């Protein structure tokens, strides 16, 4: 019986997880696991709640992407009550969702992931963090802190709360956007676009260029992908339909309300996280590194892979450059970071596009809503992957049953595989150190769980 290396907690991620690397007597990796250690069970405790209250309950699933849960939930409640949001209500929801992506990407890339690249995976743990970056590269850090704050505060000023939002409501939105608010948001989004283009350029020249080999190899696995596109195949993050892509590049498109015919969730005894897989591929579930079954990935790299194009110019140019370099679908796990920055550019461009449309100022922001029995399925692309809320209500419009597949969940099986791949290739004959163990974590961090 060999020993177990216990990386606990996994740090610079959102949530509670640990990595256990099991070594054999010779000190080589026998197996490795990512254990999800916590479970709150929102699906259960929204039972009995008036459905229109649920969007301001489930936002607490995630403090980093509360807007995504808030809006997927609002869509599901619309479905239960049989209501279509007014055009302005729809647009206000989308612009908030897209703006919320901006902050998230700045947070993840610069605050959580960047220390591994800017300070290096071998930097001492006490400085390998955003505080270390503040000391090491104060100018960059100052800029990043300012831009993230701008992104958070613009949402808060317009919608009351940036964390755990309340402004989306069944039937649309709780308040219209005034002209002054629009002008201010537009100016902020233009500043953020400039920063996004700078960040993309900075990452390509000063980060990715230095780590080409790591990017190609660390945590590398071969899987399918899931994302959202529109009728023309363009990247969408607020609405559209789902697209599965197999590792060989073949695709299957399906409406979000048929998700339960395409996706199933496997359960293992050693993790609280469920492990979704592509039921529609009819190959079952297996995390075997050489012969995986049903495994697909979600989140930035997946979306960038499944879309045919991006409808905004700067992001489209970045997509073309990315595809020339890495092909389609690109499989390198650390390419999630690169794809994340392409989406940062898209989110800024799309926000500007929406804010420049004058009908976003229309004051008819909420359709008439009456609580009743029904079923509704709402989906958006959360930063961490396709997010699905599925509710059933009784005649009083209260929840009787709920199912959710949360962005991060799609990547639980792939993260396990990446951890095993990274650990197996890095740890030989019982030799390992802090740097190697941090590299195993870097394979997890790429997924931004």
């Amino acid at each position, binding site marked *: 019986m060999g*020993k177990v*290396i*216990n990386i*606990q*907690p996994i*740090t*610079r*991620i*959102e949530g509670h997880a640990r990595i256990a690397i099991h070594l054999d007597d010779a000190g080589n990796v026998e197996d490795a696991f990512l*254990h999800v250690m916590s*479970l709150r069970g929102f*699906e*259960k*405790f929204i039972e*009995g*709640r*008036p459905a*229109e*209250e649920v969007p*301001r*309950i489930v936002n*607490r*699933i*995630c*403090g*980093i992407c*509360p807007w995504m849960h808030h809006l997927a939930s609002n869509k599901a409640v619309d479905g239960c009550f049989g209501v279509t949001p007014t055009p302005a209500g729809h647009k206000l929801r989308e612009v908030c969702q897209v703006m919320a992506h901006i902050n998230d990407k700045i947070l993840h890339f610069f*605050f*959580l992931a960047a220390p591994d690249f800017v300070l290096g995976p071998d930097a001492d*743990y*006490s400085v*390998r*963090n955003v*505080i270390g970056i*503040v000391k090491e590269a104060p100018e960059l*850090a100052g800029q990043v*802190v300012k831009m993230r704050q701008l992104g958070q505060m613009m949402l*808060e000023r317009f919608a*009351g*709360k940036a964390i*755990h939002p309340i402004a989306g409501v069944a039937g649309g939105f*709780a*308040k*219209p956007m*005034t002209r002054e608010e629009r002008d201010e948001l537009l100016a902020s989004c233009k500043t953020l676009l400039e920063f996004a283009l700078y960040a993309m350029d900075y990452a390509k020249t000063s980060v990715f260029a230095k780590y080409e080999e790591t990017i190609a190899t660390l945590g590398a696995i071969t899987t399918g992908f899931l994302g959202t596109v529109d009728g023309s195949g363009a990247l969408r993050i607020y609405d559209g339909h789902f697209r599965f892509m197999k590792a060989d590049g073949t695709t299957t498109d399906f409406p979000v309300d048929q998700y339960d015919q395409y*996706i199933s*969730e496997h*359960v293992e005894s*050693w*993790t609280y996280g469920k492990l979704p897989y592509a039921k529609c591929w009819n190959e079952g579930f297996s995390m075997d590194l050489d012969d995986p079954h049903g495994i697909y990935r979600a989140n930035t790299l997946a979306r960038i892979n499944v879309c045919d194009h991006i409808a905004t110019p700067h992001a489209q140019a970045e997509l073309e450059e990315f595809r020339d370099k890495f092909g389609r679908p690109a499989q390198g796990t650390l390419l999630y970071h690169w794809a994340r920055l392409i989406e940062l550019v898209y989110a800024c461009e799309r926000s500007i596009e929406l804010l420049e449309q004058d009908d976003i100022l229309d*004051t008819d922001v*909420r359709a*008439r809503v009456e*609580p009743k029995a029904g079923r509704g399925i709402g989906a958006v692309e959360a930063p961490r992957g396709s997010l699905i809320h*599925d509710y059933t209500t009784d005649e009083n419009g*209260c929840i009787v049953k*709920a*199912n959710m*597949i949360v962005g991060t969940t799609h990547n639980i099986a792939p993260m396990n595989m990446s951890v095993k791949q990274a650990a197996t290739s890095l740890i030989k004959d019982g030799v390992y150190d*802090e740097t190697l163990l941090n590299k195993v974590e870097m394979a997890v961090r790429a997924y931004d769980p």
Partner: protein
Amino acid sequence: MGVRIAEEWLHSCSGCEIAILNIGEPLIDLLARIDFVHIPVLMDHKYYGQLGGDSSLEIPEAEVGIVSGGVANEEHLEVLEAMRASCKILIALGTCATHGGLPALMNEWGMEKGIEDYYKTATTEKCSVPDQVVPKPLDRVYAVDEKVKIDLMLPGCPPNPALIAEVVVSLLEGRDPVIPGKSVCHTCPTRREGKGSVKSVRRFVQNAQYDPDKPLDEMRCLLEQGVMCMGPVTAAGCAAGRGAPSCISARVPCRGCFGPVRPDGNQMLDMMNALASNGIDWKTVVDRRSLLRFSGAHGLLRPLPATTTTKE
């Protein structure tokens, strides 16, 4: 050397940690005066040594400990106890830590039943509940002060960044923090006209009545408009540094996310009283127990066999 701070999250969502970051640029100045020695969301200090070989969980010693989230499993409890042992002053940050927060809605069923049902959703394969390696759930969700002594409570979902900064600065300066002690209504600019003709409260399925081009002080109090609003029974704090309660700024009613005005208050009973004393029929509130949606720890939300039966 600055003041050493350790931070942990338990049964939580990371919103409290994002609220810490939302202090924004002043945080950069604060960082010159404090040293984080443990904060999993930002920093790589590990429980069992950096090589993962130690046998007992270790949190570095710190002058100040901050803990977010409630306590719902054995690992949360172990981490909380280690935080208490290592930190001179322990702060409960956010309403999950101070009152259980939203996850304590599970206390209507209990953790075991809730988890069991979570693994029975439509898309989940037939399975038994995971029980290897993962920490065992406790019977229910607890606030942190039900388990260890807490020196300072700062609620909010999320907590207000301006108040987090105030607490940290006051500790650095060796003085008591200035934290609002009244209700959300005391910080609300909406227009109150006194007792009116409202006899019932309605669900928020239509927007409030207001002119979007006019400021908040020209909108009538939402409760007086007949909209269920929990401002009267909720601790102030969300308005600090921004001039108006955050939900009211979005023209939506308060749902109580800072917990009760008195730390040991009961938001459901207090709200029923507030409605009754204004001549409003409290029976018009749908799902009354969810008025405890932010404060269901401390034994306030419990499984009720009768309620469970009617729900099934």
